[in-house]
């Protein structure tokens, strides 16, 4: 697997430990809680129909996915009817090849890009660059990660891991031809500088590549949502527009799209709607004075069709709003890069093992306390904790966990299936802990738990187990 998916060498555990020790990252991650979480809460409160729409959106996607072959065909017919072309890509390499061929057909030297996670997934930029085509990301956040040679750390806020100071530093380093003493001490100056530089690129680009938040079968349209307007300049100015989207982005009608759009921005940034929501349908028409003369859609499968029939099918409802990342205590503590995949957080912990293989991503579904906040805030009602658990089971069945871990789990399972034995052992263990804690009433060291105990003390138990206390209370209640 190439591109942005987990690579074999990535070590989640050490990356997470580094992230926790990275002060500037920790400062930057604070913005997630300050911004996204409270804004989403406020936006949801202002729309009393939110939960009803959530149920309806779920039903729309479930219906579409169970008829996906037919909706894909209907969509394709519409795109063709409007003068566009649909290209199916079974895997990442197929998609890269199609995009490169299309670029070469118009002799493209410069390609501008709107934000697209699917293009990150397939490693599109590297592929085009290797063919001597200049690729410029135009979403401000994506532009900054591209300058830094990084990957986005959040699916809707690519530079959430950075503070303004690091961005200023990067601009001064990379924008060499600009005056040294210019002001860049506020976000607005950085934005203005990127705007001016990217204008030149927009106007000179031969091909514009965007993703799609939705594809509409009824009209053959691709939909993008942005606040900056970069996606629109990308798909309006060059002579060719290429949309790259995965097959599960299809919805039947404009009405279905409307229901989902009501949930998307509110769940993502807490906006009522993004500034721009654009429906693009085919190339320039006969009387149009502007717009691209060629319109292509690359439909990527890359593992999605397999998910239709396995225990991760619900994940195909995902609309990439990022709410599960924003509300995840693990993501909030370590940020996106530690996951080693361009899909981080709970949605990534489910998706990455499917795309890259569980052997390469086995730590990701483990990186969760299964607290359930992700499922609670998911606008598409995706049971993320259940699916992380399903990956753990698969991982166990494949014999991936280390032997010590497997033995312990088996031992625990043995006891858990025998209530009397379990209660007896629990009672013994509780008494052992009380004795060990002594008069302090706290434990600061325990065998086999050095790492966990190095950061915290454990209060000693009361001396009785829950079951013992419970039966005693029941006995008391009896008349």
């Amino acid at each position: 697997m190439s591109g942005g998916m987990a690579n074999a060498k990535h070590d989640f555990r050490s990356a997470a430990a580094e992230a926790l020790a990275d002060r500037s990252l920790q400062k930057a991650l604070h913005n997630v809680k300050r911004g996204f979480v409270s804004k989403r809460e406020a936006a949801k409160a202002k729309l009393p129909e939110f939960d009803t729409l959530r149920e309806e959106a779920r039903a729309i996607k479930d219906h579409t996915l169970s008829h996906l072959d037919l909706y894909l065909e209907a969509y394709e017919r519409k795109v063709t009817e409007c003068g566009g072309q649909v290209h199916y890509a079974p895997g990442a390499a197929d998609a890269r090849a199609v995009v490169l061929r299309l670029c070469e057909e118009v002799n493209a030297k410069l390609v501008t890009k709107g934000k697209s996670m699917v293009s990150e997934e397939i490693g599109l930029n590297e592929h085009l660059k290797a063919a001597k085509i200049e690729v410029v990301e135009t979403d401000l956040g994506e532009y900054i990660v591209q300058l830094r040679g990084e990957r986005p750390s959040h699916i809707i806020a690519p530079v959430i891991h950075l503070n303004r100071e690091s961005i200023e530093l990067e601009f001064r380093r990379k924008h060499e031809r600009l005056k040294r003493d210019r002001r860049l001490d506020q976000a607005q100056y950085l934005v203005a500088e990127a705007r001016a530089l990217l204008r030149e690129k927009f106007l000179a680009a031969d091909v514009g590549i965007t993703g799609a938040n939705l594809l509409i079968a009824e009209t053959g349209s691709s939909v993008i949502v942005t606040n900056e307007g970069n996606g629109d300049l990308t798909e309006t100015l060059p002579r060719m527009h290429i949309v790259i989207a995965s097959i599960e982005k299809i919805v039947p009608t404009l009405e279905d799209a409307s229901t989902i759009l009501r949930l998307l921005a509110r769940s993502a940034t807490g906006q009522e709607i993004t500034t721009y929501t654009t429906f693009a349908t085919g190339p320039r028409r006969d009387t149009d004075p502007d717009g691209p003369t060629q319109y292509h859609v690359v439909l990527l499968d890359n593992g999605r069709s397999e998910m239709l029939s396995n225990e991760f099918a619900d994940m195909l409802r995902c609309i990439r709003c990022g709410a599960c990342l924003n509300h995840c205590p693990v993501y909030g503590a370590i940020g996106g890069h530690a996951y080693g995949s361009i899909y981080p957080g709970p949605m990534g912990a489910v998706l990455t093992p499917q795309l890259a293989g569980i052997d390469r991503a086995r730590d990701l579904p483990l990186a969760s306390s299964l607290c359930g906040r992700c499922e609670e805030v998911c606008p598409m009602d995706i049971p993320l904790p259940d699916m992380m658990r399903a990956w753990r089971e698969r991982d166990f069945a494949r014999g991936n966990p280390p032997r010590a871990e497997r033995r312990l789990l088996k031992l625990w399972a043995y006891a858990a299936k025998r209530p009397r034995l379990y209660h007896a052992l629990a009672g013994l263990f509780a008494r052992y802990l009380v004795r060990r804690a002594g008069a302090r009433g706290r434990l600061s060291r325990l065998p086999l738990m050095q790492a966990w105990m190095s950061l915290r003390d454990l209060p000693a138990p009361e001396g009785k187990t829950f079951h013992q206390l419970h039966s005693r209370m029941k006995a008391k209640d009896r008349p």
Partner: protein
Amino acid sequence: MSTDDARTAVLGRVRAALGVASLDRARKAAVARRLERHPRGTLPARAKQGRAECIALLSEMLTAQGADVRRVLTRKDAVAAIASYLGTCNLPPRIRLGKDGQLAALPWRDAWDIERSIGPARPDDQAAVSRAVVAAAETGTLFLVSGADNPTTLNFLPEAHAILIETADIVGSYEEAWDRLRGMYGAGRLPRTVNLISGPSRTADIEQTIVRGAHGPRRLLVLMLG
């Protein structure tokens, strides 16, 4: 892999995973029915108000999202509002606009010093004027359609953008707006681009600080006419 092979492969995998055959009539009928009838989901209560409330809501939402909104009762007032907006923005009295009949019918001679050019945006254009064909009050969203009347580039290249919406074209929900477009273009058809615009361009990528004028217009004037 050839184009046809790739298509067969993807559709084949999807059908295999779903355990269906391509000729299943009941499934085909269900899909055709949904596409033809395009049933509505739940509309927010706020989108189901009377015209006066919708006009007020559109204005309120757009203002909250950073647009400057003016209610103008006459065409004369619309022209005056555009002229004074250019002044407020410190922009020269030059605008670009398309061939929209309603815009052409504005009494431009009242603002004799405004220089008008017709056509798609050019890189150095600083101000543009467009007309929205319909607006959905629920989120303060204007619907602009591509074509010679209102070229899409006008919506994004200039620094300042003025959009005219006639109050008769203000509806409550997105769904009502789509029905308007179906009336204009036919069922299942859309113009090349439909831009839903709900404020000026912005970004919050840097430390979640909102900055206006990321790539599109820094300033958006919305004129509600009538």
